[in-house]
Each structure stands twice: as structure tokens, then as C-alpha cells.
């Protein structure tokens, strides 16, 4: 393993971070690596905003009865804000638009994405969407992030603006996905065959397909909500002969696949991290790839499992329950493959590896609790209770967000050229992991006791578990703050320079300078091996 050939050309002084300076050069940059940072900063604003909303809610819920929020309306606004911020503005663009942007061209050996200007454009579409959403918060929406009709078509909060913001954000998501698909098809370096693509690229490809073809559906659905509000189009409003359940169908047609937009890239991240720190090839690479694509495909035919008690026909419920179980199989396969990769490895516990192992645990919990919700009879009980809340957060926070944090730690040396303090990162990890479980395990139990979600107030018997959950939320929030501050501080003030390939990885993105030069590689790379070229082949 060496990078001698390239160090000769390398000029560590000039890289994409400093080859042009000034805010303007960042805001108008079409460099995918810089756009990654634009997104990163933008989404972090909403992560913090959504996080604060969550903490206020948890504080309110710590004790029964009104405590710090006197008006249930404000509580309803907060959970709507939490949902809209976290989903549309943070997690959906989360990994794809940031790390996907940064890594896909590097991993496939391209200079940039296929349409660099479109890439920058989709960032500004995101910004416009975010601004519209921010403007809508002047008369904050209280519908929940699901915008179910007829509540959304009758409430007098600014639903129209907010769903329009979501529509615009969807447009940004579409353009990003489209860009990635074309990039992966057209710009692979010589020798970078499909079966040599890192699993992160595969996961990103699957994600991009979902982004591109699912997002228009929700976009149009939301426009129809606006039409309903504006002139009573009579599609979702039952008083005009419309069908509110149809709106749920169309909404979930996107909003189930969107869960895979969030979590598939995180699968990819874990698939990258575990081989490196185990010094082993990814076990069953082909199956991991196939399972990514299978999850993306199956994701389109399972949406109505969100609606088992929504008044859909029994036939429909039975059909969608059975197909939902199809998701479980490729997901299980992935977990088995990750764990097997560690077999006979040489495992080091750097922070990204800790996050990856935590991910496996959290995702096991998320996946197995998902089974409950796919089972018809049991879901009838659990639907819209705290069990669903906990399951969802295990999937999205424990999956997608932990994946993002893991990825930020893992590729941090490449992105910034600095090395962060391992000790600080581990302390943050400990808080984060412990706090997260402390928040949501009590919520599973609350769900078992029948506690419904979106409740501003609750009967006293639920109080103890709520209090514990609130304490966990604060620890969790502290963990995130600590982790992000550590990274931010290192990026700004860190002294330790990162080498090209601090982990001795064999995948392509580590073979260029840290941070990379403006167009990624000093010379166009030619790929002649698999991304996980670790270990010794036995010549038996």
C-alpha cells in the first residue's frame, strides 16, 4: 500500500480550500467539495433549530400538565417545526447533498459532478426553499410534518407557504439526485467498473434514484393541498367530495421511500468504515450492493403500511403488510455482512468505527421494532403511539444522523486536512450514544403502555418515563453539541495536519491529497483493484 506515485506530484499547499479565497468564491463555487460545505452549514442551522424545538418539547413533556409551554398551539407548532426542519431541511439533504457531493466524484475518480453549475443551482434552490419555509414560520404551521388533510386544508396557519417550501426543497433534492445518477453513469475513471464502486457510491446511486423519481410525487401532492386551500379543488377535502385518505396514499408514496433516502447513504457509510478499521474486504460486496438496490425498489411498493388504521380496505392493509416484510430481508443481509466483515480482522477502535458499531446496534433495534409495525395486528395497537416515535428516531437519528456524524468524523481528515482530537470525539460519542438510548428506550415502553404521540399533555401515569426521556434528550443534545464543536474547532484551529491516507484505506478518495486539490486528482486516476483491497489472499 503506498501512494508514492502521487506524492511526487502533490502540492500540499494549494488545495480546494485555499486555491481561491473570500466568501464570494465559496458562495459561487461550482466545486462539489465546496458545495458540500455550503450544504453542511445550511443544514446544520436547521439541525440546531429542529434540535432546540425538540428540547423545548421534551422539557414541556418532562412533567404532566402545562409546564413551560402554556398554549397547546405553541406545542403543536414546535413539533411541526421539529418535523419539517429535521426531515425536509436536514436529514433529506443530510448525507446525499453533503457527503454525497464531496465523495461521489472523489470515489469514482472524477473531477466534479456531471453538472457542476446545476449542483450550485440546486443548493440555491434549497436556500430559497428554506427561506420560504422560514417566512412561513411567521404564521407557524401546526399540522405536523405530514400535512394530513383535511386538517391542513382547513387550519388558518400558513400551510400553503410551508408546503410550497417543501415543494421547492423537493426540487433541490430532485436536481441533486439527477446530477448524481448522471455522474455515476458517465464520469467513472478508467478502470472504475460498476463492481469496483465503493458501496457508498452504490448506496448514493440508489438514493439518487429515489430522490429523483419519488420526490415529484410529494411535490405535486403538496401543490394539490395548496389548490385545495386556494380554490377548493375537491380532491382531498371530504366536504367537497374529495378523499383525505387519497392524500395519505400520495403522501406516503414519497414519504416512505424518503426514509431510504435518509438511511441508505448511512448504510453506505458504515460499509465504508467497517472494512477500513477491520483491515478486511467488505464481506459479500455483491450482496450488499444488491440489497441496496432491492431496498430502493421495494421501498416503492410498501407505502400503505403507514395507513393500516387510516381507514384503508382490509385487502389493502394485508397486501401492504406482506410486501413490507420484503424490506426486512435485504436490511438483515446488510447487517450480517457488516458483522462478518469484522471476522478475523485487525480491528482498531477509532471514533468512526465506534459510531459504525453503534450504528449496527441502533439499527438492529430500529429494524426489529420495525417488524412490530409491519405486523398488522400489532401495528393497530402501536400506530401513532410513542412506539412509532421511538422506532422512527432509532431509524432516522440512530441510522441517518449517526451515519452522518460517523461520516463526518471518518472523512474529516480528507475534507479539512486536519486531525481531530480522538479523546474529545470519544467523549462526545459516549454522551451521544448513551443519551440517545436514554431518550428513546423509555419511549418504546411508553408506546407499549399506549401513550399516543403528538400529545401536549398526558395522564399522570406516564410521567416517570417521560422524565427519563427528557434527561436523555439533554444528554443526547449535549453529545451532538460536543461532537460538532470538536469538529468545527479542529477545522478552524486544529494544528495536526492530516496525511493523504491516515487510515491506510485502499479506496480511491484517500489516494489524493488531504484536502484534495481543486479538481480532485493531480492526474486522472486509473483504477485496477476493488475498493476494499485488504488482507492476504490465501493461495490454497
Amino acid at each position, binding site marked *: *500500500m503506498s501512494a508514492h506515485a502521487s506524492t511526487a506530484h502533490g502540492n500540499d499547499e494549494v488545495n480546494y480550500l485555499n486555491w481561491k479565497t473570500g466568501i464570494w468564491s465559496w458562495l459561487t463555487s461550482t466545486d462539489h467539495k465546496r458545495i458540500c460545505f455550503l450544504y453542511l452549514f445550511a443544514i446544520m442551522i436547521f439541525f440546531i433549530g429542529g434540535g432546540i424545538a425538540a428540547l423545548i418539547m421534551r422539557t414541556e413533556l418532562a412533567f404532566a400538565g402545562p409546564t413551560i409551554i402554556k398554549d397547546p398551539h405553541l406545542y403543536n407548532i414546535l413539533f411541526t417545526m421539529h418535523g419539517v426542519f429535521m426531515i425536509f431541511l436536514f436529514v433529506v439533504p443530510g448525507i446525499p447533498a453533503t457527503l454525497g457531493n464531496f465523495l461521489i466524484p472523489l470515489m469514482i475518480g472524477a473531477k466534479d459532478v456531471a453538472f457542476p453549475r446545476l449542483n450550485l443551482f440546486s443548493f440555491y434552490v434549497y436556500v430559497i426553499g428554506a427561506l420560504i419555509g422560514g417566512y412561513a414560520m411567521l404564521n407557524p404551521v401546526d399540522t405536523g410534518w405530514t400535512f394530513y388533510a383535511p386538517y391542513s386544508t382547513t387550519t388558518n396557519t400558513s400551510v400553503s407557504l410551508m408546503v410550497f417550501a417543501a415543494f421547492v426543497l423537493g426540487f433541490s433534492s430532485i436536481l441533486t439526485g439527477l446530477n448524481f445518477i448522471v455522474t455515476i453513469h458517465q*464520469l467513472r475513471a478508467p478502470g472504475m467498473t460498476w463492481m469496483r464502486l465503493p458501496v457508498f457510491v452504490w448506496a448514493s446511486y440508489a438514493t439518487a434514484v429515489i430522490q429523483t423519481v419519488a420526490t*415529484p410525487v410529494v411535490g405535486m401532492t403538496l401543490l*394539490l393541498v395548496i389548490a385545495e386551500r386556494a380554490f*377548493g379543488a375537491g*380532491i382531498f377535502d371530504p366536504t367537497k367530495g374529495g378523499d383525505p385518505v387519497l392524500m395519505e396514499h400520495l403522501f406516503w408514496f414519497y414519504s416512505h421511500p424518503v426514509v431510504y433516502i435518509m438511511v441508505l447513504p448511512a448504510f453506505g457509510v458504515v460499509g465504508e468504515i467497517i472494512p477500513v478499521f477491520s483491515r478486511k474486504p467488505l464481506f459479500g460486496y455483491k450482496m450488499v450492493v444488491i440489497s441496496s438496490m432491492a431496498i430502493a425498489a421495494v421501498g416503492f411498493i410498501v407505502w400503505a403500511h403507514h395507513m393500516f388504521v387510516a381507514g384503508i380496505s382490509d385487502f389493502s392493509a394485508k397486501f401492504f403488510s406482506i410486501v413490507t416484510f420484503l424490506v426486512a430481508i435485504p436490511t438483515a443481509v446488510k447487517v450480517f455482512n457488516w458483522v462478518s466483515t469484522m471476522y478475523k480482522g485487525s480491528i482498531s477502535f477509532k471514533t468512526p468505527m465506534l459510531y459504525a458499531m453503534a450504528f449496527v446496534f441502533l439499527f438492529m433495534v430500529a429494524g426489529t421494532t420495525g417488524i412490530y409495525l409491519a405486523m398488522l395486528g400489532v401495528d393497530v395497537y402501536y400506530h401513532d403511539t410513542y412506539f412509532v416515535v421511538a422506532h422512527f428516531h432509532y431509524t432516522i437519528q440512530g441510522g441517518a444522523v449517526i451515519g452522518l456524524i460517523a461520516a463526518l468524523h471518518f472523512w474529516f481528515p480528507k475534507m479539512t486536512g486536519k486531525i481531530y482530537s480522538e479523546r474529545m470525539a470519544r467523549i462526545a460519542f459516549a454522551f451521544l450514544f448513551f443519551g440517545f438510548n436514554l431518550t428513546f428506550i423509555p419511549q418504546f415502553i411508553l408506546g407499549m403502555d399506549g401513550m399516543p404521540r403528538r400529545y401536549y399533555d398526558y395522564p399522570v401515569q406516564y410521567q416517570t418515563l417521560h422524565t427519563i426521556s427528557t434527561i436523555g434528550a439533554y444528554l443526547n443534545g449535549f453529545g451532538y453539541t460536543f461532537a460538532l464543536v470538536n469538529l468545527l474547532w479542529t477545522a478552524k484551529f486544529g494544528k495536526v495536519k492530516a496525511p493523504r491516507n491516515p487510515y491506510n484505506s485502499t479506496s480511491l478518495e484517500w489516494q489524493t491529497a488531504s484536502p484534495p486539490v481543486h479538481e480532485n486528482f493531480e492526474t486522472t486516476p486509473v483504477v485496477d483493484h476493488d475498493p476494499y483491497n485488504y488482507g492476504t489472499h490465501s493461495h490454497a
Partner: protein
Amino acid sequence: MSNAAIVDHNVPPGEPPHIHHMDTPTAYGAAKLGMWLFLATEILLFAVMFCSFAIMRYYHLHEFHEASHHLDLRAGALNTAILLFSSYTAAVAVTKAQMGDNRGVVKNFTYSLLCGFGFLIVKSYEYTHKAHEGMFPFVWNSDFYHYKNFLGLYFCMTGLHALHVIIGMAIMFWYGIRPARNNRFSGKYYTPVELSALYWHLVDLIWIYLFPLLYLVG
């Protein structure tokens, strides 16, 4: 363990960024794939309304039948012919561009543009007529209240379609006619013409379904 061989390939150092980002065939393939992907998203945008139409029609079959008779079939058929013809001229424009005939591109895209205007004029005539009759958003006449589901969808679908017509016209003008007047296109470079035409065909494609659904079978 093998090396990650990184060999100097073909890019001379000191090139300005992105000019040689892709070679011509790659760029052409990329642009075309990108456009088709975009068209896929457009079709899915309309798919939601087709799906809603199917469900609403299932619930209000009788009303849909009756309401569709209130639409102006002649206007709809005329618009269909206009769009088909414009689609034809747009396709011809691509062939002209491939042959390097820039004047041919201008001529054919101009026909398409004019057809686009014609379509919009007929459409606005229909809309005004509907507004007059009280079958229009904001001025619903309560006599037609039971047609609301059909008309609501009719306006959403045709409205969004008309918006696409306008966007398509803008694209044809900006990326097709304007550069063609400067003789920009040749057999080696005509991607913008092809993409504009693709977009315009999509507008036609959607209408091919909208016309029978809305005007004929209801």
C-alpha cells in the same frame, strides 16, 4: 497488495477548470441522460394527478361524465392538433441541427413557438368561457357544485400543463432559436436543440393523455 496506480492520463496541467470537464460524447450522453431523468420527474409530477383523477372518477363517475360534456371538445381537439404539429416541427428542428442547418432550426422552432402561442390562446379562450359559466376557481356557480371534483382536477391538470407549455416555449427560444441565429449548431454540437425538443415533446406527451381523459371519456 497492489498499488492504487494513479497515472497521468490525458489532462495537460494548467487547464482552466471545467472547460475540459468532460469530452464531447460524454457531455452529450450526460446531458441527454440528465434530460430524460428530468422528464421522468415531470411525468411523475403529472402521475399524481392522473392517480387522483382515477380515484375521483371512481367515486364520481356520473358527475365526471356529465362535467366532461361541459368542456369544449372542438377547442380540445384543435389544441391536440396544434400540439402534435408543433411536436413535429420541434423534431424536425433536431434533424436540421444535426445537419448543421441553423436556419432550419430557427424556422422550425419558430413554428413550434407559434403553435405554443396558439395553444395558449385557445386555452385562455376556454378558461374565460368557463369563468363566464361559473365553472372556474373562485367564481364557482353553485349549480355546478357537483362538477367541482372534475373541474378542480381539470384546472389543476391543464393549468400545470399550460405552465409547462410556457416553460417549454421559453426553453426553445433561449436554448434553441437564439443560439441558432448565431449559427452555433452543427452535427458535433446540437445538444441544446435536442434537449429543448425533448422537453417540448413531453408537453405534447402529457396532452395526449389529458385530451381523451378530460374531454372525451370524463
